[in-house]
């Protein structure tokens, strides 16, 4: 079943899968889940900073989307519609927390940085520098406000265009662009505070 579904991936668009799912084709919706599951999970992780919560939100996102397929009006792309559900569920989860949580070992991003996955031909010094930079980046992202963080994740990590991010967040492209610029500016400042200036990095090389 999985194999047959993968065979159909290049052939059917998101809209077609949604239409088929509306007509009761659960397999079509399963294809949609596998197509966007990773991105939805990464988005949830960057917003929630927790792997376990991100898994729950990801699952909840698709379950709620499937239950509300009739409400999808087709004016936007299905994935932006699913992303919006994910963002709302993540923000709801964040607001449900009693205390704001810093990065924890449960954070899949930190987990990945702790794993020594340096390429065989790569410099160990460079790999260490990248891990340090990666950690600083994660900390910097987590220090951003929910607004800037959400926008930055959508655009700079998940690769949505400003228009697509605007559809997800319900704001103009200009606002998205401004938020991305502001987030990058703050991120740059945070990296500088942690000693990641261009000269130092070049010197470390």
């Amino acid at each position, binding site marked *: 079943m999985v194999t047959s579904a993968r065979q159909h991936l290049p052939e059917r668009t998101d809209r077609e899968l949604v239409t088929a799912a509306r007509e009761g084709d659960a397999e079509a*919706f*399963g294809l949609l*889940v*596998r197509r966007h599951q*990773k991105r939805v*999970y*990464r988005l949830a992780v960057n917003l929630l900073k927790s*792997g376990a919560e991100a*898994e729950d939100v*990801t*699952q*909840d996102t*698709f*379950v*709620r989307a*499937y*239950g*509300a397929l009739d409400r999808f009006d087709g004016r936007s792309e299905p994935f932006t519609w699913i992303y*919006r559900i994910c963002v*709302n*569920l993540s*923000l*709801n989860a964040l607001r449900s927390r009693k205390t704001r949580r810093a990065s924890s070992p449960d954070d*899949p*991003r930190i987990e*990945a*940085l702790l*794993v020594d*996955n340096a390429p065989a031909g790569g410099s160990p010094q460079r790999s260490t520098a990248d891990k340090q*930079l*990666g950690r600083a*980046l*994660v900390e910097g992202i987590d220090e951003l406000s*929910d*607004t800037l963080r959400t926008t930055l994740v959508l*655009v*700079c*990590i998940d690769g*949505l*265009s*400003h228009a697509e991010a605007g559809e*997800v*967040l*319900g*704001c103009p492209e*200009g*606002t998205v*662009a*401004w*938020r*991305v*610029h502001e987030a*990058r*500016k703050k*991120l*740059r400042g945070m*990296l500088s505070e942690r000693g*990641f*200036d261009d000269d130092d*990095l070049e010197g470390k090389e």
Partner: protein
Amino acid sequence: MSEPTLKLQRNADELLRDLPMAEPDLEARAQAIAGKLGSKPAEGALSDDDLFRAPELMAEVGEPSLPVPPSAVRAGQKSNFAEMARKSLQKGEDDATALAKELMAAAKSRRPDAEMVERVKAAGRAGATASPLPTGDVERTSGVVTRAEPVPVAAAVPVAAPASSPSRGVSRGTVIGIFGSVVGIAACLALYFKTNEPASSPTSAALQAEKAADAVVAATPQAGRPAPTAAAKPNDGVVSPEALAPATEPQAPEGEKRGGGKAAAVAAAPAGAPGGSPKVAAAAPSAAAPKQEAVVLEDDPAPAQAPVAEKKAEPTPEPQLKPAEGNGGSLPISPSAGAVSTALGSVRSDAQACLAGQTEAVSASVTFGSDGHVLSVRASGPAAACIQAALSKAHVAPFAKDSFTAPITIRPP
């Protein structure tokens, strides 16, 4: 994905794009999701409406097109709206009051102005018309005539009053409006006559020229012909003594009765012209000469006397043109102090200009005739003639007395 506008340090941009992340078994998770499709959401979960609407993200400081959450808007602006509403109501009341006042003021000032302009225009047309008027009594068609017409205008004021208060009871506003219109008309007429005064100078000069010509004609053997009537004489807009003579005839006794003395003597001189001998007719213009001499100062330099004589020649027929005769006893006995002060104040600057370069003040006295015009000016010093010419332009409203003399001190500017 759009190009970043702000570069992060070194390879941070690449790292951000491929941020490493430990992923769960996605296939297992997908199967778990498939198993839960169609299940009901947990209790306390977001409703569908909240799930599909735009995420409520707080706007950043300085963010363009701030999508501030509605809750923040409600909390922050509730008091402001109430204050704005209160101020709007207050402003509306104030505006209504101010508007009512403005309308009242406009009713007072504007309506009479329009009528006044019409009347002034009509008076100007009547005064400047080149054709003789139907009745011989009103055949005086120069500015001299229009200058002496406050009576018809004053009589028209009651006509203007009903126009400003159509079919309503006489309210306080109406009374104020009528009063305002009367004051406005009077002020405008005063201005109009004052501005027309220079126009009367050519008339006076032409009058003098005609007088001189008449004197020459009277000296010829054909001077015995009867004086032409005003109707027979083509009217070129200039009043000649001949044209005025018949008109003044019936008024002579009236002038005698009212003014007596000097005014009556002046009026009697042209009155005898038609029936008299050529010599008498020739004497008519010369009869005015003693009157002119009365305003000439002994110490005036000779060249300065000519314009003064011109000025003084003009008032000669004016006792017959006085509007006071038709106005009964409504005229004041003498001009008020304010009127005299205003009249002299209007010409004071011209008189002061005569003393430019001098240091000593000059005392003068101005004698007004009952028609309000200057009969004579007495002044002393080298600039007396100049001062006399300047002060003789003063004008007050007509009054009942024969004359009224007011002292004035002219100081160098």
